[in-house]
């Protein structure tokens, strides 16, 4: 049975987290498109940067609200951790996109396309979980799926790195792509971190 609270709680946090979920999904979708269209990605890099700024804005709003609210619907430390972890996803996503341009990448790598696909799927699951966070019910399958996707991301990254370290490959290609693969993996790891925080929140409220 849900606990009855006598103190009114600020439900606006849920709306902000829902907004953050939509934002991470949008940034991951844009990165996937950018990777598939590269080097003809047009203004997609700029759109991802706007998502990153929007992520900062949402994080700031959540923390500002946290500091000005006496009673929160979720533990304060959980709100703070969740906001930070969601911001990390967009930050790493934006970094990966930025590196494509900065490093003057000529063409995408197959494994990078797979990783952006995994990242998009993980973000979709998180966005859906955040959308239903208010009820704290039936969220477990999202967390299980994000964990599975993170394992998939690890496998692809390992294979990608192994393919870079075969003999005879241009060292510049190795340096550039290792950096990009690292960022993509960090973005997917950040998704798992969000899923773990959410799982903890759900356990506390059920």
């Amino acid at each position, binding site marked *: 049975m849900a606990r009855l609270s006598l103190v009114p709680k600020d439900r606006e946090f849920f709306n902000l987290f829902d907004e953050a979920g939509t934002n991470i999904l949008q940034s991951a979708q844009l990165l996937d498109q950018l*990777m*598939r*269209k*590269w*080097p*003809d990605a047009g203004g997609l890099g700029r759109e991802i940067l706007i998502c990153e700024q929007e992520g900062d804005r949402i994080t700031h709003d959540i923390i500002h609200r946290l500091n000005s609210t006496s009673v929160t619907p979720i533990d304060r430390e959980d709100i703070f951790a969740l906001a930070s972890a969601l911001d990390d996803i967009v930050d790493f996503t934006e970094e990966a996109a930025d590196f494509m341009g900065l490093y003057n990448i*000529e*063409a*995408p*790598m*197959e*494994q*990078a*396309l*797979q990783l952006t*696909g995994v990242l998009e799927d993980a973000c979709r699951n998180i966005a859906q979980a955040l959308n239903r966070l208010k009820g704290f019910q039936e969220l477990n399958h999202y967390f299980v799926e994000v964990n599975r996707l993170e394992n998939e991301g690890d496998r692809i990254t390992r294979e*990608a790195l192994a*393919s*870079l370290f*075969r*003999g*005879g*490959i*241009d060292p510049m*290609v*190795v340096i550039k*792509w290792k950096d990009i693969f690292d960022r993509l993996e960090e973005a997917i790891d950040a998704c798992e971190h969000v899923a773990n925080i959410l799982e903890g929140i759900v356990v506390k409220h059920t």
Partner: protein
Amino acid sequence: MAFTVTQGAALHLLSVESAPGSVPAITGDATPSAGPAAARLAIIDSDSGFVRVLSKRIGAVGWRAQVLGSPPPPEELRAMRQHAIVIDVAMLGAEAWSYLGRICAISPSQAVVVCTGPTSVAQRVRGLRLGADDWVTKPCHPEEVLARVEAALRARQAGASVAEPPEPVVAGELEIRPDMFEAFVGGRALGLTRREFELIQLLSASAGRVIPRERIYERVWGYAMAHGDRSVDVFVRKLRKKLEAASPGWRYLHTHFGVGYRFDAQEAGDDPGEEPGDERESAQGSASLP
């Protein structure tokens, strides 16, 4: 015939100072006077003492050396794009002749200097006829090895400068002009980048034959292709776009799924499998490598 060289007892480094009287000491500026300003050498030799002294000398003259303790596959060696290879064929045993022949054939632009222990005249002649540029017998001074590499590089430079540029290739409405690094349709330049030109030049030089992606990458980019790299597909797409804009009635580049690409000028409609602007193998449309 297996290659046999008695190597164990020989001193592989000969100090110039240790041979008084017979050979004048090297004096003056010993810096290589010709060849690339910063030549890159691959040293394939398991004699660590010789390699250490030679590498030190190479470094002192501003060249770069990559030491390989064991012989890499010839394709990998070519992909390293070294200017010259110094190799001790004795370490290859029975494979010596076939390996030497393969590296000379597969990398005609790289100078190959054999530096090994005492051998017979017949063996040295065989090695040179297989394509080696020079043969140095150990024990030898690193300065001499360097001078011979330098001479081989100089000879190649001289050969390259007098060589005629390849003839233009005409196919369909397209004229590929190697002397101008450009392709033309009806006298109008396509505006190819260097890489696009090298790609069409490579494909057109083997017109009618399918060239695997990995081979294209090795030849145009000069390195081995990482698994999953879509560079060849992306550049073929760019090239197709320019060709289709300039010569819409013709198809020049044909995809062989899972393998690579073929250059063949065909009038549009002759090739039902390939529609104009077909980019099925481009990064844009594909989810996985065929």
